[in-house]
């Protein structure tokens, strides 16, 4: 049997670089650890370049059906690389100031990226599960990385325990599907499920429920969201940045792989389940966010509601819906990156800047950063002309197209409720008297520039909305069209 490792070269590269950095660290003096950081960033950049250079045109399966390479995987992987890269750049000063600037941090990050890549390309239950575990394990460690912080440790503990529970459910669901179909290969499962898909097939329902619950847990949809606020809040903001961005895309990818790639014939079943999850997520996420006084916690609940929105696109069950979901996911991750990026930007050694009150009157001392916050908040609230608006629009259109108008109405309603707490942030920033007399921001130039670019892109990419959506459509087409 011949082994074609050509398509997984970028993954091998990431893995190898992680190991290189790990070994290199032995010979690095603490003050020269920047080398590890630079290597990490370069690795992600090169990996993104590799995916770009070998961009898939169709859909192909490698390694005994365990690895799928298609447009979808390449789009999502490039996005994950860029997101992770930005995360590391954003958090460099932050972790330096908190003595977390260790090579292990970057190594864990790279392994997490590797896990996400495996998930995105998973064509097999086993690969999917292992990728997920690789990601989760790295994330647990990253959340707990600030060893001396009891909140961080507590958050990591909760994340770990609940994550284990989620993984167990995923395994159980998969085992039931396996018992029914006799295969772990998703495309084989698809064929058998298609033949057996009937509303009264209770075994399929049972397996589906377990899988769905674990997926909902991974992306943090209500009622499996409990870990999200605690982890986002407790973790060092650098880790929150990481947890809240790229893994969401990976989660979206495995939902597409499992539900669309494998169990699309059960759409009539998982549609209703996803409706429940989506509505609950939007409801609770937006409602509870209002009561928060902590910015990170507020953004965590906001993330929950955004995931509900992303699910809307998926549950539409049409290629349009999936690509709207993908578009939403892409836009959201970059907005969320900016949102937590602001927290990183404003904080400095010994000062977290994660309370809403810390933002008071920021406009008076730093009008440009206040403006960045304005853009991020507007985009999250879905105010035109930001990308966030178009993301919401396309998802709602997809939902209306499948005649779930009531769901669209609910979504819009919750958007309005959600606008409250986003706008409150803007009010704090612009209209309230400053909380601190003189606020110094010790952010480095690269953080300032990239965060500004991140925010401005949410508006300036407007003319590109068409091409980006077209790219999402083609990515989804490569998944749906493979069957």
């Amino acid at each position, binding site marked *: 049997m011949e082994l074609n490792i050509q398509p997984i070269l970028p993954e091998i590269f990431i893995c190898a670089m992680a190991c290189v950095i790990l070994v290199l660290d032995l010979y690095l003096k603490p003050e020269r650890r920047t080398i590890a950081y630079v290597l990490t960033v370069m690795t992600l950049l090169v990996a993104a370049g590799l995916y770009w250079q070998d961009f898939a045109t169709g859909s192909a399966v490698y390694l005994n059906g365990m690895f799928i390479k298609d447009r979808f995987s390449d789009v999502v992987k490039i996005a994950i690389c860029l997101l992770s890269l930005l995360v590391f750049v954003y958090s460099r000063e932050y972790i330096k100031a908190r003595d977390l600037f260790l090579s292990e941090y970057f190594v864990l990050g790279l392994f997490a990226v590797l896990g996400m890549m495996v998930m995105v390309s998973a064509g097999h239950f086993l690969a999917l599960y292992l990728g997920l575990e690789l990601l989760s394990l790295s994330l647990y460690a990253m959340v707990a990385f600030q060893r001396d912080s009891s909140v961080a440790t507590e958050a990591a503990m909760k994340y770990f325990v609940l994550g284990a529970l989620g993984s167990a459910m995923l395994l159980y669901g998969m085992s039931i599907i396996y018992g029914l179909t006799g295969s772990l290969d998703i495309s084989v499962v698809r064929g058998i499920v298609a033949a057996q898909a009937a509303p009264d097939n209770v075994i399929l329902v049972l397996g589906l*429920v377990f899988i769905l619950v674990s997926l909902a847990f991974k992306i943090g949809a209500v*009622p499996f969201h409990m870990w999200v*606020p605690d982890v986002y809040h407790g973790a060092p903001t650098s880790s929150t940045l990481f947890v809240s961005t790229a893994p969401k895309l990976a989660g979206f990818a495995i939902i597409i792989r499992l539900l669309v790639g494998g169990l699309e014939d059960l759409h009539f079943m998982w549609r209703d389940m996803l409706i429940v999850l989506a509505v609950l997520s939007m409801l*609770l996420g937006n409602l509870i966010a209002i*009561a928060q006084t902590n910015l990170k916690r507020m953004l965590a609940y906001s993330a929950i509601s955004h995931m509900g929105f992303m699910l809307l696109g998926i549950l539409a069950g049409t290629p349009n819906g999936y690509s709207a979901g993908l578009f939403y996911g892409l836009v959201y991750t970059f907005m969320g990156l900016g949102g937590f990026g602001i927290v990183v930007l404003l904080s400095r050694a010994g000062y977290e800047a994660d309370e809403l009150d810390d933002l008071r009157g920021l406009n008076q001392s730093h009008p440009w950063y206040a403006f960045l916050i304005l853009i991020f908040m507007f985009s999250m609230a879905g105010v035109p002309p930001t990308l966030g608006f178009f993301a919401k629009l396309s998802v709602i259109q997809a939902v209306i197209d499948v005649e779930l108008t009531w769901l669209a109405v609910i979504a819009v309603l919750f958007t309005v409720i959600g606008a409250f707490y986003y706008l409150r942030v803007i009010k704090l920033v612009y209209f309230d008297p400053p909380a601190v007399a003189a606020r110094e921001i010790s952010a480095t130039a690269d953080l300032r520039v990239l965060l500004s670019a991140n925010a401005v892109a949410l508006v300036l990419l407007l003319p590109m909305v068409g091409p980006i959506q077209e790219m999402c459509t083609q990515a989804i087409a490569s998944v749906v069209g493979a069957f």
Partner: protein
Amino acid sequence: METIYLLTPLACLVGAIVAGLFGKRIGRTGAHRVTISGVAIAFLLSVIVFVDVMNGNLFNGPVYTWAVSEGTVYQIGFLIDELTAVMMVVVTFVSFMVHIYTIGYMEEDPGYQRFFSYIALFTFSMLMLVMSNNFLQLFFGWEAVGLVSYLLIGFWFKKDTAIAANLKAFLVNRVGDLGFLLGIGGVLYLFGTLDYADVFAAAPDFAGETMPGTETLWMTLICLLLFVGAMGKSAQVPLHVWLPDSMEGPTPISALIHAATMVTAGIFMVARMSPLFELSDTALNFVLVIGAITAFFMALVGLVQNDIKRVIAYSTLSQLGYMTVALGASAYAAGIFHLGTHAFFKALLFLAAGSVIIALHHEQDMRHMGGLRRVMPITWITMIIGTLALIGTPGFSGFFSKDAIIEAVHYSQQPAAKFAHIALTAGTFVTAFYSWRLIFLTFHGEPRDREKFDHAKESPWVVTLPLILLAIPSVIVGWIFVEPMLFGDFFGSSIVVRPEHDTLARLAEHNDPGHGAAWQMVAHGILALPVLLTALGTVLAWIMYIVRPDLPGKLAGRFSAIYKILLNKYGIDEFNEFFFARGGRNIGNFFWRIGDVKLIDGIMVNGTARVVGWVSSVVRHIQTGYVYHYAFAMIIGLFVLMTWFLSS
């Protein structure tokens, strides 16, 4: 030609922008140079367009597509035909004159550049209005001239009366604009397009269409609503109240906007919509009645005014009433003709009045004037020419247009025509009286205010030149245009008249063929009732203000009731103040306190916010922080999902 069309309004716009935004930098001279050259270019181009149109080159087409929504196209476009060409020439000429005049009139005003920017902007807006080929752009121009009018009435924004006047103009015009907008909405609803050509082409097919559930014709509703807009803009009773107050603005504005051009936009619009109005007799009768009331009763109010500008303002109201009546009698051409002649002589009268006002250092009360003919001969003579034109002295431009209207109404078969005919005929007497009263009080007799009289002197050439230039057309345009405009086929297809409504054609039948229509009208008119009444009015004014100056006071005492009614302008302002203003405030207060504060703010807005906040504060306690609670929540979620979908 398209470039020329586009260039005409844009020349003014550029002037307005430069003078408005860079006024400080280019200075006073720079501001008036740039705007005047803009308007001069516009005037020249308008003349070129006019000549071109006379040669039969019409144009109708889009320039720019603004938006397409559900099949309806929203465009900027030009419709250049005879009607447009006449309006363009009139607007740009009067505007040009006013620009020049302003140099002298506003000389000492600190807002010099701002003023020039505004009037250039006004010219642009007005051109956009008349050149439009669709309702949307018409509405744009409509609102834009309204805006500039608002800005200019309140130009001296530190003067309380000016602010009150511009607010009043704004509010009253809002009423009209609402009707206008509804009318446009009706057009869009019924025809599915806003393009003139499409609407007019389809109009006959919809002539019999009634509104669901009623007997009312769609066309009647649309025309009435559109006419409400015209009533607001062209100051017809009862929406006329803003125009006299608008005299708070600088005099050039009164001449340009509130006499010659903007207020005639309503007349122009109805003439433009003649294909629609022709389809609804109800609407035409309504137009007749409103116009007649305005023409006669506003003239009466002019009798008792003492402010020189207000007299002319009421005269404007009255003349607008004449034009409106012409429209109602389907004599659109006569209406437009009167619009044109009126623009010249009324602008002349205003500018002459302005000249007097400058000479007397912003004294506007005629009771403090008198004998000025000796020191201001040019102003005096030009104003006499304007007055002669206004009262309809045979041979002057106003005579032809006004007489044509009265005759046209005479031949109209509309039920309301009889009333309108009487009102207009009687109006000529009143017009003559108040016009001469103005002249006699201002220029004749002995100076009543010696001190002011001694300082008075003739205005500089920038003021008198426009007077002379305007006096010329006030005399001659009638001779030139009466034949083609009224009896020829001057307006071509731009105005549509149904044969049974064609009063001007009937008027033409009474003219002997072969002789010039102008001569015939003069010959015919000298012995007709309107001219006799005019002469009577003139004589009466001469007796009362020159021969026996004590008579007016006695008469006012004798007929104090009528005098008071007229002085109070029929109490319409008081009625509005009491009924609409206070009533509106009370209703507003009611809705504010009960509806807004309690229901909407209290229950709906704050209530929902409070409920959401409360729910939020309750629900957040789900997040206990205990990991086994979280796990348990997950299990319950799983359990519920499982049970639900297994059982269904």
